[in-house]
């Protein structure tokens, strides 16, 4: 494992499988009456959020607290940052307070990379989403969810996603989730297909390790998982597509389309969902939709990442896997 987690592309197959396996151990902790591990006692983690994202921040915070870390939440809104203080100054100020890890969410692509590589700070940097670049813990929790559902909770241990056919649908162009997922799923051996109107596929996509299709209906029957990405309504004002209705007619997942998927196939969504746009309520609330599980799994994955980056020399839990046996 590297010292930072900036991009899903930086993870090797073995790194990724180790994180997924560690997350399974963490998930077992969550099933216990006392959901806390002492692993990061005395370590301080700051959640440095320059962009609003309550979901992601709460997920990291829960993970940090379950590992007994001291947590500082720093939100840029209403702070010195909005008065023009730079990323560098903010990070250095926080580090001067004795921070061991920085979990950063930033609207600018590359901000976490800059933070980790510019010599501004020494702390470990975990990317919690940067611009339209990467969101590696999201990709990891998605892979974790797929492995559980498509391979099995126990059968999946030590395994990757070889041969699984994963379809991502929606605003690929503006999606850090899509970029992270393509990188990680490829590393894990899955076959990825992106489906979107051509306006929402980036120029240069031909270098990505995946297929691109403009036709959702033709890919559904060949998908083990279909992941829907949020499509912001404002995009139609910039002529990415004509109307919300046309978008959902061509690229939204409704009950009829879901019926074309293989029986075992799952529907995924990183949230927040725009019901009626990329997904109908019927699909969102169905058994096959893993959106809520993904939220739960997010905490386990973030625990695993924090544990491996900060406390990796000590055993994760008290070997919960052997305990159970």
């Amino acid at each position, binding site marked *: 494992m590297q010292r930072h987690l900036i991009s899903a592309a930086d993870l090797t197959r073995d790194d990724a499988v180790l994180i997924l396996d560690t997350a399974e151990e963490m998930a077992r902790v969550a099933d216990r009456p006392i959901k806390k591990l002492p692993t990061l006692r005395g370590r301080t983690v700051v959640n440095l959020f320059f962009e609003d994202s309550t979901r992601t921040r709460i997920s990291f915070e829960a993970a940090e607290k379950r590992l007994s870390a001291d947590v500082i939440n720093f939100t840029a809104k209403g702070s010195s940052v909005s008065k023009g203080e*730079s*990323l*560098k100054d903010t990070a250095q100020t926080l580090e001067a307070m004795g921070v061991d890890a920085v979990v950063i969410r*930033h*609207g*600018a*692509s*590359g*901000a976490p*990379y*800059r933070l980790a*590589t*510019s010599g501004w700070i020494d702390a470990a940097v975990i990317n919690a989403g*940067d*611009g*339209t*670049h*990467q969101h590696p813990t999201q990709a990891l929790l998605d892979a974790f969810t797929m492995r559980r559902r498509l391979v099995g909770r126990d059968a999946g241990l030590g395994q990757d996603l070889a041969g699984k056919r994963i379809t991502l649908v929606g605003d690929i162009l503006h999606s*850090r989730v899509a*970029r992270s997922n393509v990188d990680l799923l490829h590393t894990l051996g899955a076959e990825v297909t992106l489906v979107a109107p051509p306006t929402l596929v*980036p*120029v*240069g*996509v*031909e*270098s*990505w390790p995946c297929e691109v299709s403009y036709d959702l209906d033709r890919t559904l029957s060949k998908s083990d998982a279909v992941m829907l990405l949020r499509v912001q309504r404002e995009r139609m004002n910039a002529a990415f597509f004509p109307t919300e209705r046309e978008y959902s007619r061509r690229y939204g997942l409704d009950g009829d389309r879901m019926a074309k998927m293989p029986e075992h196939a799952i529907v995924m969504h990183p949230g927040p969902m725009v019901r009626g746009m990329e997904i109908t309520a019927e699909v969102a609330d169905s058994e096959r939709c893993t959106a809520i599980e993904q939220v739960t799994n997010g905490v386990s994955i973030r625990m695993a990442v924090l544990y491996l980056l900060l406390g990796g020399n000590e055993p994760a839990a008290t070997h919960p896997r052997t305990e159970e046996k």
Partner: protein
Amino acid sequence: MSKILIRGAKVLGGEPQDVLIDGDTIAEVGSGLSAEGAEVVEADGKVLLPGLVDLHTHLREPGREDSETVLTGTRAAASGGYTAVFAMANTFPVADTAGVVEQVYRLGQEHGYCDVQPIGAVTVGLEGKKLAELGAMHESAAGVTVFSDDGKCVDDAVIMRRALEYVKAFGGVVAQHAQEPRLTEGAQMNEGVVSAELGLGGWPAVAEESIIARDVLLAEHVGSRVHICHLSTAGSVEIVRWAKSRGIDVTAEVTPHHLLLTDELVRSYNPVYKVNPPLRTERDVLALREALADGTIDIVATDHAPHPHEDKDCEWAAAAMGMVGLETALSVVQRTMVETGLLDWAGVADRMSLKPAAIGGAKGHGRPVSAGEPANLTLVDTAYRGEVDPAGFASRSRNTPYEGRELPGRVTHTWLRGRATLVDGKLA
């Protein structure tokens, strides 16, 4: 009258000769010239070029003296071998009146390191709406002949057409920063494989090419000449080549950084590589070199764009666009054009002195190295190899993409009308 004998200089890279300067003029060029009464500079096989001329410099004064002033910028120019620079109009206030251009012109004359020829804005406040008083700027003491809204594109086709027509009355030229604004909203880097991966807003080649195509057609229609700033794509080269073959009066420049660097460098997210137009691909770089060699691109211009440290010591999206270039331009041209065999030193003199002086009408600059010509000269130690160290820059800013990179060649002497502005690599 002071005399200087430059002994054993390879004039334009040719056989070693002696060059005698008398006062502000080259008195004699030949072999075994008498050193009597003259200070002797042993050139020792260095290459002697006419003083370089930069058609595209940002001196930042007035308004952004924290990044550069006319004094520091012209000292940087002298260090890089330049004897004349054209100062872009995007200052604060904008150089869109006779008053501002005269101020910049006089500062250059006072400091004496390098002639400063102000460029006037095409439109008031660079806003692209209303023509600035182009005639008044031309008639001012600054004698402006080059007009540009550089930093912004004159995107309104009617305003561009009128500007092209209007400056014909006094032999002016409009220098276009070709960037279709709607196609580049939120643009952060070249649009392509790298931008797709990095999730940075794309600046597509077509945003440059479509404006160049429009403007060469406009220039043809109204019978004007047009100059294209910092041409950066292989497609732009094709359009300019086509326009020239049709007899359209178009000239074009390329920056040193577009001759050497590619968008692969952006993977570092280091804003020192953030520039407008953006670094392009290897294919573009090779097309630009070839076009500079075959004359499709007429000149090298630096687009020297100083920025204070804090404007680059931040995340990519928040960083300013631009690179300093005056002090490294000749070295980059040596690396990309001379060492590759694409240009000889006479060709370098043509692209970096003669042609830019001709396009901008810089009197006394870009002249042959021969008796009777003004003594604007640059002596280059082409055998030198060294790493670029921005700490040694004369510029007030350090935003160079070449820090730590080994580049060939070093300017040791610069003479402006017979007066040394740079001696043994040190400013005089």
